């Protein structure tokens, strides 16, 4: 009964290649020349039984059974290094991996338990953390700037700010949310939020292969956004940004969207004179994979950092297209246990060492997952006295005199 699907298969993985080829983005799979650049570039490639190259080989051989039940299926962290470097420009991260995972789930393969919980939470509560949807705006309680709650009032705004799950519920991230709210108000931007009606954009589950869940969220979000009047969506989360840019249009649900770094960089002329307090420190910036490699945006975060008086920006050896992923994407936030169990490592542990090696005292990030991942890794590596982790927003807000220096 566990294999009871809409179309019963004779053997596991049957018809996978045909299904993949039926999608426009999947067609390129036939162009693969088995050069192995993908597997060689993959930060976890050495621990995978089936890195991308072998996966394609098996698909073309029509022999997916061992692939689907292999732990490799749950080891991709969505860093896009393979996709960027593939000489045939095959859409590996966004098409091959989700297709493999989706088929695995359809065949009854049980994903790692932590991932299951995250997916179930997403389905039931619209956030991966499993928190009450009614508490989604609690981060803004007692905020000292007015909040336009578009779930309660129908106002036209310039910016519909999609706060995100972690920035709404997770204490460390809520600090950043409050700072960003103050910043936008100070900049005179008309902004609003969806309040308790806001749901995850579903980028995680898209990459987990949970296409059904993703579709559910796209439908809900499309309906929510269509009812609002705004000029652009702004997001703190690069994964959500990438979902809006890459996947939502495929479902006829495209909306104008910007990651906050791009958005604020457009306001640099207005922002610069407001950066009055110096923040004297050596800062190195970690390029997140979605805004960086996937969407090709590397300079706006740097422009913002260099605008802060006192900041000396230094680069890690691996930067921009070559940045080493923190390991949190593609479901990675819930896969550390699985990955380490199968010979992989926590990439953020390595990356924080690279950051510290620059001599910087601050690692600047622009992704909600990275704050906790890197702070955690700093403790593990014994570097927490040497280097602190700050979102770019926190540094900007400090320079604007909007927060009390050290995370308040």
């Amino acid at each position, binding site marked *: 009964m*566990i294999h*009871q699907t809409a179309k019963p298969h004779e053997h596991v993985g049957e018809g996978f290649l045909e299904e993949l080829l039926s999608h426009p983005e999947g067609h390129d799979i036939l162009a693969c020349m088995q050069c192995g650049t993908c597997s060689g570039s993959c930060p976890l490639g050495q621990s995978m039984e089936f890195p991308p190259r072998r996966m394609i080989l098996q698909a073309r051989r029509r022999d997916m059974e061992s692939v689907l039940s292999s732990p490799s299926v749950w080891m991709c962290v969505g860093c896009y290094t393979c996709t960027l470097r593939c000489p045939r420009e095959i859409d590996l991260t966004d098409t091959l991996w989700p297709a493999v995972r989706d088929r695995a*789930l*359809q065949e009854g393969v*049980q994903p790692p338990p932590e991932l299951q919980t995250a997916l179930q939470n997403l389905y039931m509560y619209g956030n991966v953390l499993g928190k009450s949807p009614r*508490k989604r705006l609690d981060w803004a309680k007692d905020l000292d700037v007015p909040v336009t709650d578009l779930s309660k009032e129908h106002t036209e705004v310039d910016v519909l700010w999609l706060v995100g799950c972690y920035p709404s519920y997770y204490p460390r991230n809520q600090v950043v949310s409050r700072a960003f709210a103050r910043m936008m108000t100070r900049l005179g931007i008309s902004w609003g939020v969806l309040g308790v009606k806001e749901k995850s954009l579903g980028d995680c589950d898209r990459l987990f292969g*949970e296409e059904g869940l993703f*579709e*559910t969220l796209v439908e809900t979000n499309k309906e929510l956004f269509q009812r609002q009047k705004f000029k652009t969506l702004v997001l703190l989360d690069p994964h959500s940004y990438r979902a809006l840019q890459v996947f939502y249009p495929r479902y006829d649900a495209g909306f104008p969207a910007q990651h906050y770094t791009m958005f604020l960089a457009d306001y640099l002329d207005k922002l610069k004179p407001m950066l009055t307090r110096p923040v004297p420190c050596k800062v190195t910036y970690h390029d997140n994979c979605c805004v960086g490699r996937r969407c090709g945006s590397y300079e706006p975060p740097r422009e913002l950092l260099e605008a802060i008086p006192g900041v000396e920006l230094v680069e890690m050896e691996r930067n921009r297209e070559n940045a080493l992923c923190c390991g949190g994407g593609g479901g990675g936030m819930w896969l550390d246990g699985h990955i380490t169990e199968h010979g992989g490592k926590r990439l953020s542990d390595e990356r924080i060492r690279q950051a510290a090696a620059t001599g910087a005292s601050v690692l600047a990030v622009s992704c909600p997952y990275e704050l906790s991942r890197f702070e955690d890794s700093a403790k593990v590596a014994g570097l927490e006295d040497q280097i602190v982790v700050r979102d770019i927003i926190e540094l900007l807000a400090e320079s604007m005199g909007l927060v009390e220096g050290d995370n308040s």
Partner: protein
Amino acid sequence: MKIVVVLRQVPDLIEPLEITSEETALDYDEAGFLVNESDDHALEQALLLAEAGSAEVTALAFDFGDVEQTLFSAAAKGVENITTIPWEESAPPSADVASSMLATAIRSIGPDCVFIGCQAHDELEGALGPRLAVELGFPYLGVIRGVSATGDENVVHAFKEFPGAAKSRMSVRFPAVLGILAADQPPRYVPVSRIRAAMKSAEFDEADLEPVGCSGAVAVTRLSFPAKGDGAQMLTGSEEEVAEQIADILIEKGVLT
């Protein structure tokens, strides 16, 4: 063997709970609902037995709370027979009503065995399973962690959990009601696409039952939140400050050596 699994909806404790103005009941209109956790385990255990041998599974549920979601998910997991019992009230049926109506529905299905979760957090009158068993005239065994088939299709082994991580292996000759605590494996994940497919194709039978009045043997005179008076002394400050405070407390108590 034919197994009926009872699936109940319980208030979701993730959402803030609200009490009616009379202060005698939960405000069920404001509550969120989800499947009772041990009932979900009961379903999983039944599915495992179905996969292992020739068991047939029927899911039975009151049409209450977010039951459709639960039942579509059950269908997506492979349950072919699903029956709902009509229920109009905003509050769930009381124990005697539930037991009486479930028993009537179960008798017309005629299973060998009934699986039900051994506890639900909104039970005031003790577990429902034993009561249902008496109504059906079947024996009951509860707090079961794992059920396995034997060579005899009318007999299974059930493992009753005891303190100290001990368990007793019991032989159960059907018919019986089994109160499941945990299945041999956690409830399986089913992809949302399958649930959505089930939403389009699955059909539920409806049991032809009249609602039954309740006896009123147990009346709630007051429902309230626990008094916060005495309770933990909450420590506040930054993480470092609170950590220091606790370390000092432990030294004072002689625990830190």
